[in-house]
């Protein structure tokens, strides 16, 4: 297995569970909870290292994942006192836990082979070097096992509880009424996010896992209106970011995880600009089209009332300046809605009259 292959597969194994779970976080407007958990698992990771030197991948995963779940519990407990808003409780909880982790690391740095930088940006380039050996048998890269388990867990949760997750995301009230236990679903989702973040931090670091968790689903959110399509699209965007990021980093000899985040950001920026349904350009074009058709409607309605008018009459009648009247008039003439006679009078064509009738019917 070549090193490049291992790194790309590792990146994809981070991108897939992050995209699926991140879709739910973005739709629930809980994207920053993902950020919070990715920081707050730090003390869990440190404690896991403390307790048994070098734990098996699964034990460390579960231990730190428990801390992630604890973050969700703390945030909810603080918010439910009614004394602190949700955004503040997220911020207070994760910074406190991160500070605790950072404190533990520098206090006992000598005993723990773990440094803050590694936790924050990870090093996916080491993925091929760490192999899992059980009973003398080489089972391949360790990340394949940890992230493989994470991916199976995340996909399993979403496939098994798809209906529950969907209803509680879009209509929590309905979920309660149907007896779908949105509270349980919430904590299951938080648990899955925790395990994913912990599994991924080793490869891409605590902060860059946030890029995989939020940017691909947000990109997909700009392209579709269906939950299932959004998840599939988010996975596709995540995988493309991972692969493109790898080759980018390879070409420029820079941080692979950082380049993957930049690739995800570039795809998101492209969607913001160019999404055919929700992009900035499409929105601007739609607004311009609406403005034009509204102005044409006003002009035609004004004409239908006064039968024959000159450009000057229209300007007076509509309260527009002369330039605007001639612009709108030119558009209406080239669209075949009006005719201009030799002496400067403007009259509606048959098409124009039909447009006015349609308009007044629509407004009735």
């Amino acid at each position, binding site marked *: 297995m070549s090193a490049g292959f291992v790194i790309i597969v590792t990146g994809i194994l981070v991108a897939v569970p992050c995209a699926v779970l991140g879709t739910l976080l*973005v739709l629930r*407007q*809980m*994207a*920053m909870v*993902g*950020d919070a958990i990715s*920081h707050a698992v730090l003390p869990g990771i440190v404690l896991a290292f403390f307790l048994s030197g070098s734990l098996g991948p699964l034990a460390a995963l579960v231990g730190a994942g428990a801390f992630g779940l604890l973050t969700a519990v703390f945030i909810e407990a603080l918010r439910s*006192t009614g*004394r*602190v*808003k949700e*955004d*503040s409780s*997220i*911020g*207070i909880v994760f*910074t*406190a836990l*991160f*500070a*605790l982790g*950072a*404190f533990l690391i*520098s*206090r*006992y*740095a000598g005993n723990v082979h773990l440094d803050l*930088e590694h936790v*924050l*940006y990870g090093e996916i380039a080491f993925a091929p070097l760490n192999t899992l050996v059980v009973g003398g048998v080489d089972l391949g890269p360790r990340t394949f096992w940890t992230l493989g388990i994470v991916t199976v867990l995340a996909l399993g949760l979403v496939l098994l509880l798809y209906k529950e997750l969907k209803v509680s995301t879009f209509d929590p009230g309905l979920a309660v009424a149907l007896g779908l236990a949105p509270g349980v679903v919430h904590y299951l989702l938080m648990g899955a996010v925790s395990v994913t973040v912990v599994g991924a931090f080793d490869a891409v670091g605590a*902060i*860059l896992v*946030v*890029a995989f*968790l*939020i*940017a691909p*689903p*947000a990109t997909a*959110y*700009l392209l579709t209106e269906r939950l299932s399509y959004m998840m599939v699209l988010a996975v596709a965007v995540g995988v493309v970011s991972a692969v493109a990021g790898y080759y980018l980093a390879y070409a*420029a*000899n*820079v*941080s692979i*995880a*950082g*380049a993957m*985040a*930049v690739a*995800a*950001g570039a795809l*998101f920026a492209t969607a*913001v600009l160019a*999404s055919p349904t*929700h*992009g*900035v350009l499409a*929105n601007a074009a739609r607004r311009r089209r609406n403005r034009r058709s509204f102005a044409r409607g006003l002009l035609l309605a004004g004409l239908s009332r006064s039968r024959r008018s000159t450009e000057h009459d229209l300007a007076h009648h509509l309260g527009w300046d002369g330039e605007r009247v001639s612009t709108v008039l030119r558009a209406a003439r080239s669209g075949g809605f009006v005719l201009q006679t030799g002496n400067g009078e403007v009259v509606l064509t048959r098409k124009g009259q039909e447009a006015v009738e349609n308009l007044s019917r629509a407004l009735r």
Partner: protein
Amino acid sequence: MFEVLSAVLFDYTVRNIALGSAILGVAGGVLGCFAVLRRQSLLGDALAHATLPGICVVFMLTQTRVSLWLLLGAGLSAWLGALAILAVVRGTRIKQDAALGIVLSVFFGAGVVLLTLIQQTGAAGQSGIDRFLFGQAASLIRSDVITMGALAGAALLVVGVFYKEFKLLTFDGPFAASLGFPVRALDVLLTSLIVVAVIVGIQAVGVILMAAMLITPAAAARQWTDRLPAMILISALFGAGSGVAGALVSALGPNLPTGPLIVLIATGVFLLSLLFGASRGLLWSQLRERRNRAAALSGGGA
């Protein structure tokens, strides 16, 4: 004990650290009040991460380690991040939380990429950049403290000048707009001041823990009062107090990192405020509830 304390208090390095931490506590405490009340607590977190590419670019261009220039780069890229957040939220259907998360992680990712480029060129000054990431209060020198003080002072001055406008914007934005205040410009100005507070603090506590200094003291102060001027004052006091206490405790022994200690102390202050804070304290409302229940059971008392 007293000897240790007095040695600590009159030590040049410790005085710098304590003063610097107090300054960042005040700046974070005051501006954090507005961020917390406007439900933008996590803006500081996103902007703190978004400083990284700016620091790297300035370093690559100038090879300088003068903190003022690096801070300018930090401020510029955080400000661009803030504008990106505002533009995405206004221009598309992406909500604030996702916009914050994307700017935070993508800007940080770009910073990490630039950091590896710097490492490639073999520049020895890379350690100068590390201190912005994780904060190294211990490396604060007098000129750093003066820079921090000047920036924080300027930010507080602007808050003082536009106090009425910011108050109106915070509590009733639409009303402010209806009175003809330039709401968008004020929004950008207030966000820019939060950027200033972030760059005041990143040297001392690092990008992640700076987010705490913009949230925790303000949320603690909120438990003691319902009036904005009092909240700002208490928050500044809590911020400065946590800063000084953290700096002093970390000077007492080896391997006691300043940044995390400041944040842990601030969190402690917040928890105490949550329990005991004036009329809103959880403890008092528990007691009140119990008294009311007893009174009701014994026939209302009246």
